[in-house]
């Protein structure tokens, strides 16, 4: 069974009388454990599609099923609960909470979203921090670590809830070449280790070249490329 299935998916924004079709009836499926990249020029609809899959924005047409749940019609609270149970996020700007330590940032979803008991929480947080190679930085604050380390923490935070799907919007845009490569390899390793599906939106050829499935978006329509080389030649 597909983890993500979109049928004639549409998203239209209305500003006054003006309608903008950001996603124009796209169909696609993503299987569990995939390493998928959405590519396309700015304004093509990559982020919109990620927001729809991430249950942050409701579709205006078609159906979108994520982890067996038709996400159309979920209210704010149901959407939040669904995201907390199934989806992890990795952001371009890392978006760590500055007053929390590395450990506390990773722990945050288990405290505030899933309410996991303390012993299990500690075990899970340390497991993830070890997986991303941050066990020696647990007491540091985001302001005290590098960009690459921040993104490692963000990956650990995304996976700590046993999310089935991690959405990463331009995860390497603010990282240097070497660090970006390490982050991508880390994500792939996490996919292999935790069987989590990773979906990226990116401009970065290093991410694209590591993707196993590439969807090209242009003007709200979608084309699937079978090989990374077809998707992007940076």
């Amino acid at each position, binding site marked *: 069974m597909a983890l993500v299935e979109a049928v004639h998916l549409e998203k239209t924004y209305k500003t006054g009388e003006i309608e903008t079709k950001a996603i124009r009836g796209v169909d696609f499926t993503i299987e569990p454990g995939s390493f998928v990249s959405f590519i396309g020029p700015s304004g093509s609809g990559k982020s919109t599609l990620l927001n729809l899959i991430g249950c*942050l924005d409701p579709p205006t047409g078609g159906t979108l099923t994520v982890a067996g749940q038709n996400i159309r019609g979920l209210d704010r*609270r149901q959407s939040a609960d669904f*995201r907390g149970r199934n989806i992890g*996020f990795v*952001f371009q700007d890392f978006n760590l*909470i500055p007053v929390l330590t590395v450990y506390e940032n990773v722990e945050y979803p288990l*405290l*505030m979203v899933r309410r996991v008991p303390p012993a299990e929480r500690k075990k899970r947080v340390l497991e993830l921090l070890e997986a991303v190679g941050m066990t020696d930085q647990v007491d540091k604050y985001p302001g005290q670590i590098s960009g690459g380390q921040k993104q490692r923490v963000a990956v650990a935070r*995304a996976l700590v809830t046993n999310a089935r799907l991690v959405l990463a919007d331009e995860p390497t845009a603010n990282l240097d070449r070497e660090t970006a490569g390490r982050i991508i390899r880390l994500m792939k390793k996490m996919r292999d280790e935790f069987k989590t599906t990773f979906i990226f939106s990116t401009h970065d050829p290093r991410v694209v070249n590591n993707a196993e499935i590439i969807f090209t978006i242009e003007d709200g329509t979608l084309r699937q490329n079978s090989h990374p080389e077809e998707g992007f030649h940076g």
Partner: protein
Amino acid sequence: MGNLIKIAALNLTRYKRRTLLTAMLITLGVMAVLLFVAVSGSFKALMVGQITDSMLGHFQIHRKGYVASIDNLPLNRNLNEQQVQKMKEILAAEPAVASYSLRIKLGAMFSNFSETTNIRLNAVLPEQEAETMPLLAGRILEGDQTGLLNRGEILIPELIAMGMKVKVGDTIVLVATNKEGSVNGQPFVVRGVLEGISGPGGRDGVIHLEDARTLLRMEGVEVSEIAVRLKDIALLPRVAGRIQSELEALTNREGKTVFEVHSWEKLSPFYNIAKMIDLMTFFIKIMLVAIVLVSIMNVMIMAVYERINEIGTIAAIGTRPNRIMALFVFEGFLLGVLGTLIGTGLSLAAIGILNRVRLTFDFGRQAGLVLAPTIGIADVATVILLVIAIAVIASLQPAFKAARMDPITALRHV
């Protein structure tokens, strides 16, 4: 909830200076209210104590119409023997009554054999009066305080003592007119000089009740007023009301009521000052509410505005809107608690210091009154709860805004 409070507390440490400034503002507000309540409350209690415990008692009973013409000290409106007896029975049956004092109030001419002046007098039974007015003996500045006075003695107000150059042990003559218009004179020995205090009766002299009866050539029992002391002043409204309704049932042949009951509040102009103090306390509390409301709302609006992106992040990772709202409400709550605790601690310390320093002040003709501020647990609890409640209320709007924020819009915010 513990985790929410912990994260809210950590959020307050982001801008330590701002948090401290806001907490200090609340601290100052709390201190202003608590110190004002303590100082004004002690002043009020001191004055009320003086009025009730050395002059008026907690309430008084007169014959109907006496208080309306009390400035003339009318002898023809005294209670007669039968009425006094009835009142004694009623007061004896009331368990809240600690004691009462029968008085004859009269005006007289005071002569030191070379000069003459007017004097207002309370004629009392010393044992009854001392029991009902426990602070009266303390007002005797010169002379023996023991037993108040004996027959043939007089306690004179200090203004008359100074003006007429009369000392303790001197003999003076009182000349009074009785209700039939007959004038009589009688010598008295000055037993003591009474400190004058503000309020009705505060500059009256005191003689023995039996001396007044002789001076006024009274036949049978006559009493101008009965001053009553309760075991607890808090019982005043209930007991005075009960006695009032009991007395209203007693009518004369024309069907009119015979007695009237007046609490100290109705007899003393200080009651209006006390009410003014209560009103000022109320307005100071309103100012405190405004300070807390504006400062916390301002800080929380800023906190939400500065953390829009972070709100988007925590919403995206699945934090429910109500938890986001609770997070910001707890921030306001903790800010209120911080300011209140510091303010309460400093206020109690300041009250302790003021009591140790024993500052004095003058009120009217009374000099050297000791300022001994005290504050009840109920007042402290009221202020603490008020401030914390207002802090939470002030946080609600910004917290609601944060909870309602669209995650995508918030995440795009730079």
